[in-house]
């Protein structure tokens, strides 16, 4: 695969690394018992600790630690028995302590890797450097008053996992696939709700460009991107910007950039000289975090089937392609739905590929059109299973099945109900089909002549006419066979 992008003078390769900030799914914050519920009224979920009142002390939330360990296991990573919380010192209005509690030298999770799958059936490993736990900051609200900034501390102290990748990513698509994969793993593990719109998952992107084979170039970091679309846009824009500078003889300044979602452009936020000196040091209010092998073992044994395992299982059990299986397992709700559908009837096992298609193309497009989610799909897995069963037993044609699905989607009825009510059963009676064909042949003598003169393409015309007369219910294979037979007899 050629991942290079063309500049004016050279081909260039992007080198991309991601820092993903995933909010830990937990009812309470990392160091306090305040609620983490999203969308509550400002400053309604703030404890004395979150507001950094004098004399208040952080106490680690064990559940968040377990969630991080779980995630580490899911990322095939090394879990560290010993990790340390550090203070990252800087002033900002929505950072009440004047420091963020994070992990610097000794993170809770070390090296790991995740695999991304391409459409062509190949795959690639992206290495993970580390995962560490840290507190989120509050939120500064600049749009509430013309001259004042308000601060909402509801988010202050919420637990985040920062997942840092090696610079193994080479294209915006890979970046998108990587973050999707991480999101998928977190959601399977139930350690993050994966909601990018609400900011539960966001990423900082480090990007540089180089001529193939060269050393890494100077990188820039684009901060705080909260959708895969923006990540790709930002990477594309930033890569082009860097290439233009380099090709015109300039050099890249190591900057921290912000991405403007309305213009699609990046702009510098601060340069290296303006970079903060965070004065990291171990937080003396907290003891080092020690997790025993037994505890790690216990957490490991509680982990559900993850997308890659499930993918392999699907490939093996249902003979699906790598790509189909990875699409099915990309989101837990999809693989759950698939499992429920295929298990709704013992026969369906033999039609796995059809089941995949009906879920990932027909049902997904209906859901998309109606802005709905698989989780609250009006068509239940059992009902979809029933529909596919009707197709597989030739009771209805695939074409009619599409209309039936639409009907099921809007009316909530079962496939059986709709087919019976509307009489949509496929016509498989040879005599009945032959009768219709005879009618069509009789009514189109000129066409028959032309066909017999060698215009084979006209076969489709006769099929169409016959289908029209049967309201699409004729079994297409039988129709084809009988039609050919009859026409050839004329010869």
């Amino acid at each position, binding site marked *: 695969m050629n991942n290079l992008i063309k500049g004016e003078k050279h081909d260039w390769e992007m080198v991309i690394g991601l820092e993903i900030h995933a909010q830990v799914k937990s009812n309470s914050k990392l160091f306090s018992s305040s609620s983490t519920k999203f969308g509550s009224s400002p400053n309604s979920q703030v404890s004395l600790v979150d507001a950094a009142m*004098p*004399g208040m002390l952080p*106490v680690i939330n064990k559940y968040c630690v377990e969630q991080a360990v779980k995630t580490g296991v899911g990322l095939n990573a090394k879990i560290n028995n010993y990790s340390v919380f550090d203070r990252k010192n800087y002033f*900002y209005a929505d950072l*009440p302590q004047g420091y963020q509690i994070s992990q610097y030298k000794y993170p809770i999770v070390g090296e790991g890797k995740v695999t991304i799958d391409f459409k062509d059936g190949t795959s690639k490993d992206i290495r993970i450097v580390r995962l560490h736990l840290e507190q989120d900051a509050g939120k500064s609200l600049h749009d509430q008053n013309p001259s004042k900034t308000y601060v909402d501390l509801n988010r202050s102290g919420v637990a985040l996992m920062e997942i840092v990748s090696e610079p193994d990513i080479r294209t915006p698509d890979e970046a998108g696939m990587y973050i999707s994969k991480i999101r998928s793993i977190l959601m399977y593990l139930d350690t993050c709700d994966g909601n990018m719109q609400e900011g539960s998952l966001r990423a900082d992107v480090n990007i540089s460009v180089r001529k193939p084979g060269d050393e890494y170039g100077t990188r820039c970091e684009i901060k705080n991107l909260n959708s895969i679309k923006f990540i790709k846009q930002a990477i594309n824009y930033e890569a082009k910007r860097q290439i233009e500078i380099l090709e015109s003889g300039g050099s890249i300044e190591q900057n921290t950039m912000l991405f403007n979602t309305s213009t699609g452009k990046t702009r510098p936020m601060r340069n290296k000289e303006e970079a903060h000196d965070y004065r*990291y040091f171990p937080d*003396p*209010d907290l003891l080092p975090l020690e997790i025993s092998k037994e505890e790690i073992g216990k957490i490991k044994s509680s982990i559900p089937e993850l997308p890659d395992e499930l993918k392999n299982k699907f490939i093996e059990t249902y003979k699906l392609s790598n790509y189909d299986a990875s699409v099915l397992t990309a989101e837990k709700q999809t693989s759950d739905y698939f499992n429920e559908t295929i298990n709704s009837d013992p026969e369906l096992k033999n039609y796995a590929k059809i089941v995949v298609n009906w879920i990932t193309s027909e049902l997904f497009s209906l859901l998309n059109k109606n802005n709905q989610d698989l989780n609250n799909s009006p068509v239940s897995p059992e009902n979809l299973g029933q529909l596919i069963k009707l197709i597989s037993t030739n009771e209805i044609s695939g074409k009619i099945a599409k209309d039936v699905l639409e009907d099921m989607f809007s009316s909530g009825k079962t496939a059986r109900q709709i087919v019976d009510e509307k009489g949509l059963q496929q016509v498989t009676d040879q005599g009945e089909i032959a009768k219709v064909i005879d009618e069509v042949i009789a009514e189109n003598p000129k066409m028959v002549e032309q066909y017999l003169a060698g215009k084979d393409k006209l076969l489709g015309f006769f099929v169409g006419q016959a289908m029209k007369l049967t309201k699409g219910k004729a079994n297409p294979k039988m129709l084809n066979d009988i039609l050919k037979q009859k026409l050839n007899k004329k010869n």
Partner: protein
Amino acid sequence: MSKSSLKQTLKDLDTKKISIRELNQDYLKRIKENENLNVFIHFSEENVLKQIDNLEKDNSAKKLKGIPIAIKDLFCTKSMPTTAASKILENFNPTYESFVTQKLLDEGSIFVGKTNLDEFAMGSATNTSFFGNTINPLSQENEPLAPGGSSGGSAAAVAADLCLGATGTDTGGSIRQPASFCGVVGIKPTYGLCSRWGIAAFASSLDQAGIFSHNVEDASILLQSIAGFDQRDSTSAKIDIPNYFENLDDDLNGKTVGIPKEYSIDGTPMEISQIWEDAIKVLEKKGVKIKNISLPHTKYALPTYYIIAPAEASSNLARYDGVKYGFRSDEIDSLDEMYENTRAQGFGREVKRRILIGTYVLSAGYYDAYYLKAQKVRKLIADDFNKAFKECDFIVTPTAPSAAFPLNEKQNDPIKMYLNDVFTVPASLAGLPGISIPFGKDQNNLPLGIQILGKHFDEQQVFNAAVSLERSYE
């Protein structure tokens, strides 16, 4: 001035020889008579009377019922403002009660007021307070003396008999040194014995609450009341607290005392070497084995302390930014200006000096040379003690290198001021318990203190040695 002890007062209250109201009115009277000492940042007679009213209505038995206690103004209290002696918290009223003060309230004690201290506990003379100096009650007519610091207000409150006990905090000597200067007993327990929850932080890995009292028995009663595990403080120790008072035993026969040679420092006044020798002689007479020990890294303790404590302070004090509570400067045109002016105007000189030092030693490029190295030395200092305590049961040293000095001396020489902590800082770095008891006087009849250090969580041995020395001195 004959002072009644806490122990005796509890008896008198029990036998109805005196009522809670009579007792406290006696103290209120003295507090008002001694306003010139500037012991309290916050004192309200009304508040004290209210507490008396409430206790009179309360029929339950409580260990310290009606006992007047003074609280260092670093402990957050619901019923009184909490300032940390800083302008930046001038009008701060906590909505919560610190662990230590809550324990004292639960036992039925009466808070007579919040005592003065060095701003955020940074100082050795109670002269960096935004609310002015506290004067040592032992000062002679024309020469006002410093009470020591940082808990100078609490030490002075006990010395002037304005309460039967007081809370303090000790980061590098802030209980023991003022106790020595004011001629009272002051104990800093093992790090982790008393929860730090609700105490405005100075240096988290060193801060520890403790007690001032008239005598060792009283200290043992009060310390037991404020000690204990608290799940809100991750550094709080999960141990059973013994009944120190019940277990007091002045028979030291067969014990071994360690005498560290590194504590004989050139320039230490004769009188101080003298009381140290006296104490050793007394112990010897009591059958205590004298063991000369070495704590070889002692000389690095002060520089180590003055890296670690400011480093932690620079971060701990970042929360005072004018955003959420406390003082905010009026002159603000931007967020940066709000920080700069709020903190420039809200903090005093010594606090700013330590924030600067702390920021410097943690900054990129200097961290390894200062902070990291200091942490390593701290470990060596702790190891010194661990080794020494294999050969002895407790260690005896002087508490401070001088008696109380005049108020204005050393004000402009921070290094000289820091030297006050030379004997107290090593045990702080090692997290060990230490007590200072009055033991002898200098030529001006000012009290001098002897320090007894013990093993981790061996407060009982510290109390036993202290009560034994105290009884022989009386």
